[in-house]
């Protein structure tokens, strides 16, 4: 409550300052234009009225702007000085507290001694005096996040005990309801790593926000909070299109959340392309042994969405057995764009089948330079004698590609 109150009081004074400043400037502009003014019993006789009276109104406005500019310049210089000192102080304190909390929290999480109740209580008591102001709290939470994101083990149980004992839950709450979205992002991260499910509704609200930074973190937080799919991913990307950043963050959050069981079949099947992308990436990175969805994945080969097409190929070539891979490539290769052809060749460079090499030999002449290079690399890897037959090719590009392959890869 005190934390809330201090934020409100601070905001009130900041708003009051700006209000008084703007009001004073407005009042001055008015007062200096009049011969005399009486406001709330205060009588003001304009000493420069004769001058103001003698100049046109537009010149008076320019004079007011001049004074405002000078006043603003003065305020900004003062604020710069204040910022500079404050930031220096903040940075130094932040650095000190970060080091301190990194050290003590790492120790607390990893040292077996703190599994014992009495040592734990002792630790809690020792750390409590260092969690009084905002800088300390931010450093404390940031340190926890840093440690949690670095280590693959789940530290939520230990940190929850700490938060409970130190009565910090309401502080996390104050972050999530704060008007600043950077605080909301921090709160979502902490809440999701601590698996505190009481704030799901608020985070779901953020997931529908038009602020993409807030939205992206809300997606990742929701994923960390879920243990089962619960069709969560059908919600993600339903209202707003997902960016590549969203897709990456979501996929990484799922991959790190080992508990979460994803209905990735539904994702691949989704009409929403972004959800399909997530499904395909999960198929590649998490469910690579599961070939039941291969038929579905193949449907996306040659898709007009270039990124989706690329991911589909990448996934398909990761999970498909080698024999099927050759059939797949032979069937689609000619219709694909150059970038995809390069990807296909790079992903299939270990195929030693004669049938595949024969196919490569067939298509090589019609392809642009970069594809020729990749094709010759495959031949180089598998059939050195065959590569030598390209040495005297009259095709300039094949000559170039041959020279590169023989020059670099040998």
């Amino acid at each position, binding site marked *: 409550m005190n934390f809330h109150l201090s934020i409100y009081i601070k905001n009130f004074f900041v708003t009051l300052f700006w209000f008084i400043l703007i009001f004073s400037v407005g009042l001055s502009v008015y007062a200096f234009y009049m011969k005399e003014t009486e406001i709330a019993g205060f009588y003001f006789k304009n000493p420069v009225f004769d001058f103001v009276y003698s*100049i046109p109104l537009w*010149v008076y406005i*320019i*004079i007011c*702007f*001049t004074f405002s*500019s*000078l006043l*603003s*310049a*003065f305020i*900004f*210089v003062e*604020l*710069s*000085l204040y*910022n*500079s000192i404050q*930031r*220096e102080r903040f*940075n130094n304190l932040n650095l000190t507290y970060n080091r301190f909390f990194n050290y003590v929290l790492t120790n607390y999480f990893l040292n077996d001694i703190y599994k014992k109740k009495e040592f734990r209580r002792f630790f809690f008591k020792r750390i409590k005096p260092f969690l009084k102001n905002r800088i300390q709290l931010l450093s404390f939470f*940031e340190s926890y*996040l840093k440690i949690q*994101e670095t280590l693959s083990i789940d530290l939520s149980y230990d940190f929850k005990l700490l938060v409970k004992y130190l009565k910090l839950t309401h502080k996390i709450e104050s972050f999530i309801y704060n008007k*600043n*979205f*950077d605080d909301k*992002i*921090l709160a979502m*991260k902490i809440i999701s790593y601590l698996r505190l499910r009481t704030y799901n509704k608020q985070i779901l609200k953020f997931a529908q926000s038009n*602020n*993409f*930074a807030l939205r992206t*973190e809300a997606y990742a937080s929701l994923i960390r909070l879920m243990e089962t799919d619960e069709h969560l991913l059908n919600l993600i990307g339903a209202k*707003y*299109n*997902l*960016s*590549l*950043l969203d897709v*990456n963050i979501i*996929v*990484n959050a799922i991959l790190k959340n080992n508990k979460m069981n994803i209905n990735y079949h539904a994702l691949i099947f989704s009409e929403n392309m972004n959800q399909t*992308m997530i499904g395909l*990436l999960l198929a*590649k*990175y998490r469910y690579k042994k599961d070939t039941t969805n291969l038929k579905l994945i193949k449907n996306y080969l040659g898709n007009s969405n270039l990124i989706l097409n690329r*991911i589909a190929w990448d996934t398909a070539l990761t999970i498909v057995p080698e024999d099927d891979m050759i059939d797949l490539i032979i069937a689609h290769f000619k219709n694909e764009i150059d970038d995809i052809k390069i990807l296909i060749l790079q992903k299939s460079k270990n195929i030693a089948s004669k049938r595949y090499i024969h196919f490569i030999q067939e298509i090589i002449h019609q392809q*642009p*330079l*970069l594809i020729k*290079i990749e094709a010759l690399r495959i031949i180089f890897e598998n059939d050195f004698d065959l590569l030598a037959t390209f040495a005297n090719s009259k095709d300039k*590009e094949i000559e*170039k*590609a041959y*020279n*590169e392959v*023989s*020059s*670099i890869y040998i």
Partner: protein
Amino acid sequence: MEKLNQILNSFFLIYGSLLFLSYVFIAILSSIDLSFYVKKSKHFRFNSIKEYKILPSISIIAPAYNEEASIIENIRSLLSLEYPKLEVIVVNDGSIDNSLQKVIDYYRLIKVDYAFNQTIDTANVRGIYKSTNAAYSNLIYVDKENGGKADALNAGINIARSDLFLAIDVDCIIENDAILRMVKPFLEETKIKVIAAGGVVRVANSCEIKDGRIVNVNYPKNIWAKFQVLEYFRAFTLGRMAWSRINGLLIISGAFGLFDRKLALAVDGYDKSTVGEDFELVVQMRKHMHTVEKQKYKVAFIPDPLCWTEVPSKIRILKNQRNRWTRGSIDTVLKHKDVFLNPKYGKMGLISFPYWVLFEWLAPIIETIGFIYFSLMLIFASINFQIFFILLLFVFSFSLFFSSYAVFYETLVFNRYKGYKFLFSVLFIAIAEMIIYHPLNVYFALLGNYTFFVKKNKNGWGKMTRTAFDDKSKKTKNGKLVN
């Protein structure tokens, strides 16, 4: 005569009012964008980008001319930049010093038949080198005949095989996580294609540098560099940020910019016939998006100080640089005059390009005419002295306000220059700028116009001397490849 006076007075009043109004808008827009950027990045770990599953590949293209003194360090610094899919292409633009041999020896390079298409016409590439040391496998060293910076960059674009390319000056100091920050806008957009991204360039003069990294940021000792620090604050922190907010950014610094490679190839890369090749490329790419691809696009800007460069510390060098910038600007404006107030080109045609013409190119000319006009009026006593001085005072006070606002944001958001000494010094510089640096800049811009229109010298680079960052050696750059 009186009628003419009235017309001229009204013209200068309207022009001045529009100019000041535009500055107010710039201040407001940049504040909004900066505030959003800071908040969204505060708890974002840029390092996590390295773990992403879908990332564009990036080629750094660094043209180098006679960089013998620092080339080894510069390449090492580029190779240490953090990004998972990165290749570094250093283009030796026909250096006449021993830099080629030095790089070959140090990085154990051998000449290879690296295949590439000459999609953009460039000077002859004499050889491409790769390292036999696996640790430098992503380094490609290109040796070509001298053709200028634009030509070297074009050679790099031809050779690059990545989705994006980062054009940089080889002697710039790049922050370690610069690429991770620069690539983020390319990942963030949902419906809009990001075609390029620029970053803030800061002044490295007097900064402490160790192993190719800035370890201590110092305010320059040299007065001309001091002026430029303030100028860069206003231009990057406020100006470019504001233009980026409304997607009207027309220029990305040649020292540091990330571009879509295929798009750059589609517009034939950098224009070798101009000295403002960075400005020209962005305009070309934007035009291409409007006329050929007809797709929504964005030129993004990152307010983080990611690149540090040495600025001219001698007035002669500064004169050459500003002269060249002016000529480059005029050349591009005239080449693309069809964009001016053309709704076909969206915001570029209706807002940013006309702004550039009126308030970047023509401003020094109009200012000079105004100065002469009002001076004559003063001499002939045809002007109200009181009003004249009130207006002059307003111009000075507004200028002071704008500079202090830029400094305020710098300290609020980045605070790279620290302490009250810096603030008092920069305040003094902001005042001195109005009477020393600004008139000089106007004069240099006029010289640029004169060189372009009267001397017909459109693409001469002049001479530029740079002091090596560590002050251990001095190097001279002649001819085409500078800054």
